């Protein structure tokens, strides 16, 4: 479990801290006034808040202290703003304070933030403190440091990362270590730390070696060894579409198809499933854009196509045939669980088991989630959440989204950067603790543009049950608004499977409670899916 404790009364505390700030800004081009900060604290617009924090002056004592408070209490995007402000610090006094906070602050959120701020400065004098922070007691701090060190190519950074890798025991930090080392060196030595050590000892002493240099042959070898994601294209005649996927992991366990939430990239799952990759081959699916399907049924004047579940199911079956696998387990998230459910019904013999993460049983549940966003957003004056809810519905005649019509009818002008605000809010809602810096780390790689679709009529409980019993594990987060615990339990019951509710997660239990997730899923698969006998024999 790597979540933070939830903050309470953060705004009140921050407003109290505001009284300590001077009312005017000294200097000409930098800094913000107390009035601007006060206004930002009360706005629901995350972009305004972020930009205000970014402009704060860490050289000013009271603003420095305010920045720390925001960093400790506010959601990830606010924290990102404070980090950028801190990265502008210049005086020895402030820099000392930052180093001290990185080393000794009790709040890991502050230690994380300081690590990122110091890394962003890219000043040689701070690197030794960052290398020391690789030994922080908290894995969430360590993974942030590891992630931050990937940017600037420095042999000392590689050295520090390789050394840390040898003693790291947290699987997620290990994945980030491998990722950062890959980015810095392009050496693709895989998940085993000792391989990295032996390679690096040779490379760093080789006068001809240039950090980050590689060639296609080395990349190919890394792919073959499973150290690099192996790309696959499946031309599905049945599904009428070409499916792209990438593979990693090996072992005797049943292979698993990984289907991220709709419109999200496999990159949001890749760092967190290393526990499963030790025993299973994982096929990370990149769902094809809607335009690549032919003759889809459409709705509204804007011809919005319905989500092509059945075509995708057929494409997956073609993928299975191409890989010559007897059966797959399918891990599907959110609304994409419908693809797994339909697959299990249509090709029950091809499905070894279903792992449904924060699933929905159908359109009704999707609509209930939409209501929750609208109601809670409005009730809490969380305009970004409210607007997000409104974007999830549209007028079936005109194709206009409810947000557009709401704003038109109420004569509300669009904010500048409104789309970005809504997008960030919807992403934050995937997490139990919205402060977690991992949200920030994954944000730039999360999207996978698929095009706009209309939700097809789907109701699991009205679907015909699969001809065979499909072992099913449903995992959902307690704080998810995208789905509900009751619905998840209903789905598990329908399949006569298990439902686990994670207390410190929302829709990303594989990220927020990664250790438990990997353990639960591995245990479930071991128990309920057959293992290839010949493969296990070979292994022995």
């Amino acid at each position, binding site marked *: 479990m790597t979540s933070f404790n939830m903050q309470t009364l953060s705004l009140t505390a921050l407003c109290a801290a505001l009284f300590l700030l001077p009312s005017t800004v000294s200097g000409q081009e930098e800094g913000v006034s107390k009035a601007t900060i006060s206004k930002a604290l009360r706005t629901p617009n995350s972009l305004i808040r972020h930009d205000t924090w970014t402009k704060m002056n860490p050289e000013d004592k009271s603003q420095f202290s305010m920045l720390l408070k925001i960093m400790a209490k506010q959601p990830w995007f606010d924290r990102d703003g404070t980090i950028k402000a801190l990265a502008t610090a210049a005086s020895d006094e402030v820099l000392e304070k930052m180093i001290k906070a990185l080393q000794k602050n009790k709040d890991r959120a502050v230690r994380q933030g300081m690590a990122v701020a110091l890394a962003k400065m890219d000043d040689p004098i701070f690197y030794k403190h960052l290398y020391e922070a690789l030994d922080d007691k908290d894995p969430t701090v360590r993974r942030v440091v590891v992630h931050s060190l990937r940017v600037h190519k420095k042999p000392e950074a590689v050295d520090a990362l390789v050394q840390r890798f040898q003693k790291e025991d947290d699987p997620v930090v290990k994945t980030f270590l491998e990722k950062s080392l890959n980015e810095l060196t392009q050496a693709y030595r895989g998940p085993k730390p000792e391989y990295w050590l032996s390679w690096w000892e040779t490379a760093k002493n080789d006068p001809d070696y240039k950090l980050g240099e590689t060639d296609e042959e080395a990349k190919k070898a890394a792919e073959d060894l499973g150290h690099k994601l192996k790309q696959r294209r499946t031309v599905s005649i049945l599904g009428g579409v070409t499916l792209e996927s990438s593979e990693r992991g090996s072992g005797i366990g049943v292979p698993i198809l990984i289907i991220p939430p709709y419109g999200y990239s496999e990159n949001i799952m890749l760092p967190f499933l290393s526990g499963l990759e030790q025993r299973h081959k994982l096929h990370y699916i990149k769902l094809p854009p809607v335009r690549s399907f032919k003759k889809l049924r459409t709705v509204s004047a804007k011809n919005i196509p319905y989500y092509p579940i059945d075509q995708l199911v057929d494409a997956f079956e073609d993928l299975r045939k191409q890989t010559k696998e007897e059966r797959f387990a399918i891990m599907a998230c959110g609304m994409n669980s419908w693809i797994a459910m339909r697959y299990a019904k249509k090709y029950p013999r091809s499905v070894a088991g279903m792992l449904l993460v924060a699933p929905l049983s159908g359109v009704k549940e999707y609509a209930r989630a939409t209501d929750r966003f609208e109601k809670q957003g409005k009730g809490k004056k969380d305009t970004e959440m409210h607007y997000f809810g409104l974007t999830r519905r549209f007028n079936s005649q005109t194709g206009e989204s409810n947000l557009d019509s709401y704003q038109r009818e109420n004569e509300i002008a669009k904010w500048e950067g409104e789309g970005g605000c809504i997008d*960030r809010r919807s992403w934050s809602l995937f997490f139990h603790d919205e402060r977690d810096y991992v949200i920030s780390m994954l944000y730039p790689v999360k999207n996978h543009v698929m095009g706009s679709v209309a939700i097809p009529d789907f109701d699991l409980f009205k679907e015909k049950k699969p001809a065979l019993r499909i072992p099913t594990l449903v995992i959902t987060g307690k704080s998810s608004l995208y789905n509900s615990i009751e619905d998840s339990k209903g789905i598990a019951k329908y399949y006569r499977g298990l439902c686990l509710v994670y207390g410190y997660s929302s829709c990303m239990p594989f990220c927020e409670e990664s250790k438990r997730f990997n353990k639960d899923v591995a245990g479930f698969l071991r128990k309920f899916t057959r293992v290839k006998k010949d493969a296990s024999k070979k292994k022995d």
Partner: protein
Amino acid sequence: MKDRTPRRRKAPPSVSLLLVAFLLVPATVDAQTRRSSKTRLSRDEQIEAALRKRTQKIQDQYCRDLVRVANWAALQGLKKDAAALVKKISGINPQYPKLEDIREKVEEAEEESDTAKNEKNGKSLLTRLKSADKKQGVELVKLATGCMKVGLFTRAFDMINYVLEISPDDSKARKILGYKKDTKTKTWISAWEYSHRKKNFLTKEGWFEKKKKKDFDKGLRPYKGKWLSAEREKSIRTRNEYAPYTVKSEHFEVQTNMGRERAWEFALKLEDFYTQFFRVFIGYYDQIAGARLLFNRPETKKMHLVILFPSRNDYLTHVKQEKGNDKLLRESAGFYSGSDRKSRFYWSDNEEETYRTFYHEVAHQLFAETKSTRSGGSRGNNWVVEGIAVYIETWKKIKGNWVPGYEIDSSRMKIAQRFLAANGDWSLQGFAHIDNDQFHKVNRGLNYCLAGALCHFFMHYNDEVYKEDFVRFLSAYYMGKISNDSLAEYIKIEGGGGFNALEKQFKEYMATLGEKKPEPEAEADPEDLDE
């Protein structure tokens, strides 16, 4: 009502991209056909006729005054000056009835040899000329006001600018364009600068507070409220992208590690571009908003933020650090991101290329930030977003005047030209149907070129016959009103024919492009009104 997946997924925060130049094939330089950048008047013929009549009247009056001055000059023995005036009258209206009379008079005139007398008369001549110019200026201001009343804002804007060329001190014209007179220096400055001068002073590095002038003169520079030595400041400001030099002009905030002086240079270039941008795309806004942007220049509530990285490496570090090392961005020379309202690009050794990227990205930014848009609602015709920015790369400043569409021998235009020549079956309708994802993922470089060429066609074809329609189309796209086949609905082609006819014209246009190089026009000469 139907449920659907969130709109944000369909339309993620807009990131407009520009391909790096080295992806493109270098092209030879050809000439091009002359495409007038003259703005078209309203198609309302009655207004047009009335305007022509009134312009003619003002022009005749001006010629009459000039004849009078030339006559006087000839009598005073200022033969050369008188001859120059005759030439000027002939340039304004070669058919002017009294032209021959005055020409004869001037030819017959004798030159005065008394230097003192000539000097005195020369001064008097200048006063007389000024008076004639002023008189014409007053009339043109009146006419411009009339133009504004009927919605001919660009025309009015050009007239007012012309008045300032001939009569720089015309207070009415100055006021219409939002200038104020600085009583100390007796110069006309923008209202923004007027209020800014009260507490600040201008340097090569931009504006600084007057109360800090002593510090500034000592060589100190501001950083986070403290004044440090310029060297110390440099060491901080060039350390990374998070504490760059920042300058603010009227509408832009420029951030760069390249130095404050450089940042200010960029800001000034952007301000210059800003005016031309609104002049060309006034139809993108509704009439009132457009007029406000052109004339009153309301105080910008939010600056347009522009980040210039010192090198491609710095740019790539930024992409890696802040944008997830996105492949499309890595392959770009710059991008504008609507989600944080910033355009970014880098300085390269090729200065021209840098400026092309600079205007390209800022064009995206101005379209997105000067009007409340809903472009996510449009379907199809996604080429227009990059197309219009690529088209703006063809603008060039010549002899102090912007010439939109000038650079048709740019590599992108040439690639489009060659492609169309070799691929006769290319379909405009098919191109209009490409979605944004496909536009950027399949043949991206070529798509940029074709989109830019299409915009050039719509902006300049046949003496800009489609320009107004196309700018309306552009506006509709950004307002989310466009569907796959809207292009043929917005661009009205004489005799009909829709997509096929437009496609044919476009191909013909591209085939002849480069036959004659355009010339910079005398900016906003009211004589141009006499078509």
